């Protein structure tokens, strides 16, 4: 399955998205005063839970042009710590392997969190972080080396440490590679685990938004690892229209009291409930290998929108999981269990409750001079 270049160009890059948003905002100003006031009230309520009204999260809604069947490759591997070039070579090898796979090249290739560097890099994050555009360029180069200069377009989801003018983020991008590489979305991890073995907030900045975006393979959203442990984050993605949720992850294994690590069970349970509640496909790709004694559990898996586990890789060892989904299943699942529709019906009341809860919180203490 290949994309025609003209369609590819229709799907826009980030700069165009921003331009379209500006146009949309200008159009909104032209609406009647009462409608605008109502809209502002709704928006104020919605922002409380991180939901911004949209009809077009990234400026385009092209359901008609989206493929209903999506071929996926979920990749789990152990990056070489701190060596971005070596890891891009590994990614190139993955592309090359997929090129020769009997199933043909997938529509979307999904890599784990922090794929270009490994997860635990501490202060080294400033040395391994790239801009999103630089990452796109490097990925595109890897794809061309593996698949030839005129390879058929395909999409990639990849976790990486992002440098945005000195601000560092734990991010994941969704890009379309081909003759005209396009960066469709960058998600910056919101929930930075900073407890126990984790210390993310010491080294990277929190992301602020959860967005859904259109691709040629369905409307998608990205959450990174702990983001998806918060059910409300999945809810926001689903409310924004996501049919597929991608979760690049790096989950250190712990809890060996049963036949599989406890965190593998936990993730499976989280995904099962989140997928069924929201009628959404969830695609999870996890790092593997040990970093300083901490062993990551891959267990990359696809959860169907009925909460049905479709496929799962072993928790240890590098692997590529191939599978295919039909986006029609999302509609079927949401009709069978209209939980998302019910939620939308009650969204106004819920946002009011969130508003009240926020209003009743103790005020944040004022910043004091540093000692």
């Amino acid at each position, binding site marked *: 399955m290949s994309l025609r270049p003209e369609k590819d160009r229709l799907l826009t890059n980030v700069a165009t998205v921003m331009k379209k948003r500006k146009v949309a905002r200008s159009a909104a100003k032209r609406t009647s005063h009462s409608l605008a006031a109502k809209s502002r009230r709704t928006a104020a309520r919605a922002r409380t839970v991180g939901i911004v009204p949209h009809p077009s999260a990234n400026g385009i809604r092209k359901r008609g042009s989206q493929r209903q069947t999506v071929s996926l490759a979920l990749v789990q591997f*152990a990056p070489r*710590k*701190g060596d971005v070039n070596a890891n891009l070579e590994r990614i190139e090898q993955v592309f090359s392997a997929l090129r020769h796979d009997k199933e043909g090249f997938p529509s979307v290739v999904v890599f784990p969190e922090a794929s270009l560097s*490994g997860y*635990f*890099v*501490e*202060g*080294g994050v400033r040395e391994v972080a790239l801009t999103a555009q630089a990452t796109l360029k490097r990925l595109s180069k890897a794809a061309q080396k593996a698949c030839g200069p005129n390879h058929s377009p395909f999409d990639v989801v990849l976790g990486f440490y992002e440098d945005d003018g000195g601000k560092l983020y734990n991010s994941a991008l969704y890009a379309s590679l081909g003759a005209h590489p396009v960066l469709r979305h960058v998600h910056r991890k919101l929930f930075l685990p900073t407890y126990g073995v984790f210390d993310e907030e010491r080294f990277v900045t929190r992301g602020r938004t959860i967005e859904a975006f259109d691709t040629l393979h369905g409307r998608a959203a990205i959450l990174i690892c702990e983001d998806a442990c918060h059910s409300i984050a999945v809810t926001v993605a689903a409310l924004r229209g996501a049919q597929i949720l991608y979760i690049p992850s790096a989950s250190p*294994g712990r809890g*060996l*009291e*049963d*036949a*599989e*690590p406890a965190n593998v069970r936990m993730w499976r349970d989280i995904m099962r409930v989140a997928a069924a509640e929201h009628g959404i496909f969830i695609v999870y790709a996890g790092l593997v*290998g*040990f*970093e*300083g*004694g901490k*062993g990551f559990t891959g267990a990359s898996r696809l959860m169907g929108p009925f909460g049905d586990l479709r496929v799962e890789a072993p928790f*240890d060892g590098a692997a590529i999981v191939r599978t295919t989904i039909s986006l029609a299943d999302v509609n079927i699942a949401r009709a069978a269990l209209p939980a998302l529709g019910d939620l939308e019906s009650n969204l106004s009341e819920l946002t009011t409750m969130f508003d009240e809860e926020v209003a009743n919180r103790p005020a944040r203490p004022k910043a004091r001079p540093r000692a």
Partner: protein
Amino acid sequence: MKAVQLPVVHATPPDGADLRIDPALAQRWLTNFLRDEMIRRRSKNVAIVGVSGGVDSAVVAYLCADALGAENVYGVRMPYRTSSSESFEHGGRVIKATGIHDLVVDISDAVDGYLQYESDASPTRRGNVMARQRTIVLFDQSAKYDGLPVGTGNKSERMLGYFTWHADDSPPINPIGDLFKTQVWELARHLGIPNEIIEKPATADLIRGQTDEGDLGISYLRADRILNRILQGYRAEDIVASGFDRAEVEIVTRRVNATHWKRHLPTTAMISTTAINEYYLRPVDY
């Protein structure tokens, strides 16, 4: 009207001191750890294991043989002239059963070469000198065979501070350092280590007749459950209230609180905003 008998379902609250492990999963996890940390991360496929004849080093020898192949593992027995002959013989059984290389380095001359000038050294000092001499041997043998020393200290010893600093804790990797002693026993049974090695009283064998539990004043079976609760965040009074003996809780608490320094690198005076491991933070495998 006839009374309806409703079934009553009873549930037992989870025991926070549960130390259960799945030994098959633990074996798989730890052999993966050894392969990954040694071969992939450090490009070393030779392990040097000090085999004391006790259960900890036996488990590590079995895991290393499983992970790397017996031909890539050297079991080093390092007796001192007062060491137990039974320990030496048990170490030999482990080496034979696993098929790893058998090395014997008697440390008596090296240890006595120093201690002849310290004739009033206490048993503890003498024990520490022996432990550190064994570390010298392990690191030197690693250089000889282009390998890595593999640690054999368990979590109970580490938490209780029952080890010689910069000796038992010094190998760069340790597969069993997050397993309590009782969990090591469980894994040892799964690996097929002879019962007499598992069931004999644990000893550092630094002083004749010495046993761990004699030194500590509490059995591992009880110490591990108390340690586990401490690590989970329970306070001493909570642990006593849940049925543990106050004196035993105090033994464990005192040892843990007195030995935090043994679980860290040396304390360095900080004078800059680039102090290593304070400001300049890079992981061990970076």
